[in-house]
């Protein structure tokens, strides 16, 4: 992955030097392992702090909304799709952006690694070929097969290469297809349950939620100036961590992402208690694909399905 890092630094330095952009948004090494942090580089000296490895799971599209500068941005497949969503939703102009496309081979699941080893992880390294991940800490060191420790959304990803970009730092990586993986297997499993089982499943899933809103803050789609959960006049939803309040929060947040979510996994990654927020958003993604043939962020020419009306829109639910 050092080759990616070098190319990102080289491209960023060139863009800043030539004055093509006012800043470049990329990843810098995080203060704790497996948590690379977003970084804005405004001068060429900052650029050497940019890195690229399997811990760049945060979605950088989150940091461009409403900006007025010309921005260079490092974008994986999902980041580029979210940039396309932002362009359609007028949160940023296409000509303000210089997208540095990074073909992605998936991000490492920090929750899974933390659970897989005994002890605190101090460092995570990957081999250059992208085959293995070595985790080490005080008194232990374990090596995993990289494909086996990917985030679930990355293992199921169909758009690893950036869909829009101005420059791509490496050759395209092979894409998966529906023949390789069943991306909705987890959703189908829940769909097969009875209403009581579903209720119990989500009770269990959400029982740890502390309403910290990390999922919302990490989500590039959640850019509302005042979120419905923060509003007090009127107060749409209670502030407690009782199940009805928690459910309303998660249900509505997910629903606000319908037809816009690119399954980037930033919500799951950011959750401090390890809730699989995607249990809700993935269902909406599946429905959008089935009912509207729509996948978010693949084009900047079309409005999302819940934003448009077509005479043949499905309406079986109206009785």
């Amino acid at each position, binding site marked *: 992955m050092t080759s990616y890092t070098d190319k990102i630094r080289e491209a960023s330095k060139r863009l800043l030097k030539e004055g093509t952009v006012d800043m470049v948004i990329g990843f810098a090494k995080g203060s704790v392992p497996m948590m690379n942090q977003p970084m804005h580089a405004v001068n060429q000296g900052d650029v050497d702090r940019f890195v690229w490895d399997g811990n760049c799971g945060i979605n950088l599209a989150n940091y461009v909304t409403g900006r007025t500068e010309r921005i260079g941005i490092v974008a994986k497949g999902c980041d580029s799709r979210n940039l396309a969503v932002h362009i359609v939703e007028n949160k940023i102009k296409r000509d303000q952006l210089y997208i540095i496309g990074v073909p992605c081979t998936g991000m490492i699941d920090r929750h899974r690694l933390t659970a897989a080893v005994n002890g605190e992880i101090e460092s995570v390294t990957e081999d250059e070929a992208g085959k293995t991940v070595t985790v080490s800490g005080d008194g232990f060191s374990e090596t995993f097969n990289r494909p086996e420790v990917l985030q679930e959304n990355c293992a199921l990803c169909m758009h690893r290469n950036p869909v829009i970009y101005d420059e791509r730092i490496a050759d395209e990586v092979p894409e998966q297809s529906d023949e390789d993986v069943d991306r909705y297997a987890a*959703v189908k499993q*829940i*769909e097969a349950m009875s*209403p*009581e*089982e*579903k*209720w*119990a*499943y*989500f*009770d269990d899933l959400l029982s740890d939620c502390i309403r910290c809103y990390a999922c919302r803050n990490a989500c590039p789609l959640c850019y509302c100036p005042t979120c419905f959960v923060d509003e007090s006049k009127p107060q749409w939803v*209670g502030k*407690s961590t*009782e*199940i*009805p*309040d928690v*459910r309303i929060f998660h*249900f509505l947040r*997910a*629903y606000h992402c*319908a037809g816009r979510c690119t399954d980037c996994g930033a919500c799951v990654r950011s959750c401090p208690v390890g809730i699989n927020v995607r249990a*809700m958003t993935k*269902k*909406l993604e599946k*429905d959008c694909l089935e009912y509207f043939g729509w996948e978010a962020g693949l084009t900047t020419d079309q409005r999302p399905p819940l934003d448009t009306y077509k005479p043949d829109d499905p309406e079986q*639910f*109206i*009785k």
Partner: protein
Amino acid sequence: MKNLLEHMGIDPGRLHFSWISSAESTKFVDVAKKVTEEAAALASKEKKYMKTKPKVA
């Protein structure tokens, strides 16, 4: 929206979507009656949709 509510375990019988014009008062009455009857039939002793802890502040 209906799909996600059902996905999260709300009983399908509790959800109802209808298209009623402001001129269709009788249809509104019929639908409201039907929906409340259906929901009442599904009511359980377990108050899972309600909060149980007292409100503070």
